[in-house]
């Protein structure tokens, strides 16, 4: 791991051309250190989702530079040919809803990405079981996703995001449907995982319940980011 988990410089995303062009992102700069959990806050239409999509290598930015770990992935144009492999190996996703694959059991849901990356089934499952144990859902390893409670599913989703040991995790409103106790529990897990695996985590949210847990928060308005120090309240 290098010094920078995520580093974005001067990112811009323009939709349309000429007079009708709209800049969803005008000038975005942010960094996240390995092991750090950073919040990204902003109203709707501020470009949050666009930024996440750029970070997730799902849409192509118009200009700027993105670095993941020690690899520049975008510099005016994508550096990597295989964006899918990039997402698979270097970025973990946590969504609002767990979005587990219903026809795979819990272990295989988590083991899927490592298998897709080429690991043997046994090794992938081994890693999955470890992660699930770490996230305190090890006892549900053989269950079907439909049999789990919401909180358990979310933890499995987090395990899935961590399965390939990506340097970066992008979390999109992971606590939105949860109550404060659960939300704080998720944040605690994210922080633990970040420290344990030295992962840089960006959490897009407007859940006020968890804002105090961030040490640093980026606000995004009109396509620009502004850094702010957060309370960094420790999580029990």
């Amino acid at each position: 791991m290098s010094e920078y988990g995520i580093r974005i410089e001067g990112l811009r995303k323009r939709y349309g051309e000429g007079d009708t062009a709209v800049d969803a992102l005008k000038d975005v700069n942010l960094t996240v250190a390995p092991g750090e959990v950073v919040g990204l806050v902003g109203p709707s239409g501020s470009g949050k989702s666009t930024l996440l999509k750029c970070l997730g290598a799902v849409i192509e930015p118009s200009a700027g530079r993105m670095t993941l770990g020690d690899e520049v992935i975008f510099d005016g144009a994508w550096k990597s040919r295989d964006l899918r492999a990039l997402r698979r190996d270097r970025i973990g996703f946590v969504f609002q809803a767990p979005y587990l694959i219903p026809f795979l059991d819990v272990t295989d849901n988590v083991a899927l990405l490592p298998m897709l990356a080429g690991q043997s089934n046994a090794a992938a499952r081994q890693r999955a079981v470890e992660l699930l144990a770490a996230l305190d859902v090890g006892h549900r390893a053989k269950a079907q996703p439909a049999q789990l409670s919401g909180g358990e599913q979310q933890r499995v989703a987090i395990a899935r995001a961590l399965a390939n040991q990506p340097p970066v995790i992008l979390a999109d409103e992971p606590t939105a449907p949860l109550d404060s106790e659960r939300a704080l529990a998720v944040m605690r897990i994210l922080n633990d995982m970040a420290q344990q695996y030295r992962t840089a985590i960006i959490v897009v949210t407007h859940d006020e319940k968890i804002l105090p847990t961030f040490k640093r928060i980026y606000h995004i308005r009109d396509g620009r980011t502004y850094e702010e120090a957060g309370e960094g309240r420790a999580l029990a």
Partner: protein
Amino acid sequence: MISLAGRDILHSWGKFVLTGAGLGLLIGVTLTMAGVYRGMVDDAMVLLNNSGADLWVVQQDTLGPYAEPSSLHDDVYRDIRGMPGVASAANVTYLTMQVRQGNADVRVMVVGFEAGQPGEPGYLIAGRQITRSHYEAVADIKTGFTLGERIRIRRHDYTVVGITRRMVSSGGDPMVFIPLKDAQEAQFLKDNDAILNERARTAATPSLNRPGVPGLLEAVQRAQTANRYVNAVLVQVRADYSAAEVAATIRRWKHLQAYTREQMEEILVAKLIATSAKQIAMFLVILAVVSAAIVAFIIYTMTMGKIREIAVLKLIGTRNRTIAGMILQQALGLGLIGFMFGKIVATFWAPVFPKYVLLEPGDAVRGFVVVMLICTIASTLAIRAALRVDPATAIGG
């Protein structure tokens, strides 16, 4: 790597199996239709094989004796026997008629044959061959007659002494073999009312009923009830001669028509079966199209039901190839289940059909290949839809 398709199938196996069963019934019907066609061709082949003949000699300018009526004098066979290259020649008659069994009628083809000559049933599944020159019969098992039963054909009762299998006419009617003389009488001697009518008419004709010539009327009436015709002469050709040669000689010198085995096959298959073959071919095409549509619809629906999962998979880094493979495997799996189900079902209901249904392994293999092809093509619709899904939709707006 695990099989996503396999997991999905196992997860919603009920739906899959039911769909497969439905598809299987459709495939079963398709295989059965092909089997009906094969059965018709087999009926014709079996008819030709069972006669044991190399040549069929019939009335000139007819396509007989199966496709058209044909009448020959019953002493023509003696001439034919004397021709070079002829190993044996025997008279046969064929007549499709109703036979009484108790209170019911059974539709059969009555074959008149001479014992030990071509035309005799080639194998029995029970009982014995005919030993008496009159009033014994060998019946096909499809008639429903049993050994020892007495059946009525025209004026006489016959005892069933032997049972055969797969001896049918080209139309699928089971055969009943009786001695030639009895068959001639059955075919050419009319019923009693007609005979009496004929006698009365002859008696009323002055030139035939001359008072000055005693015995003339009786002689004429006897001549009228004589049965001196047969439908065909079956010829076996000697090993060192070719059937075509002998047939050509017969045609040339005897004012008769003679058909070789190949020509008879063509007559039966090309002429008799042609219309049915076309119908069946059309049915097969329609069924194939319907099957393709159903498979396409089912797979598409299944895929659409998984759109969200597909978006997530794409987002977290699954290749398009993998996703397309999953859909294709599901379609092929559905096809496989459907085919096996269909083949089993077709095999079990084939004997129930009134006509002979012949399910050939070659047809099954071809059918399997076609089913797999159809599934592959049908899955392309769903695959296209899946590939068009934008992974960004997994990330909410």
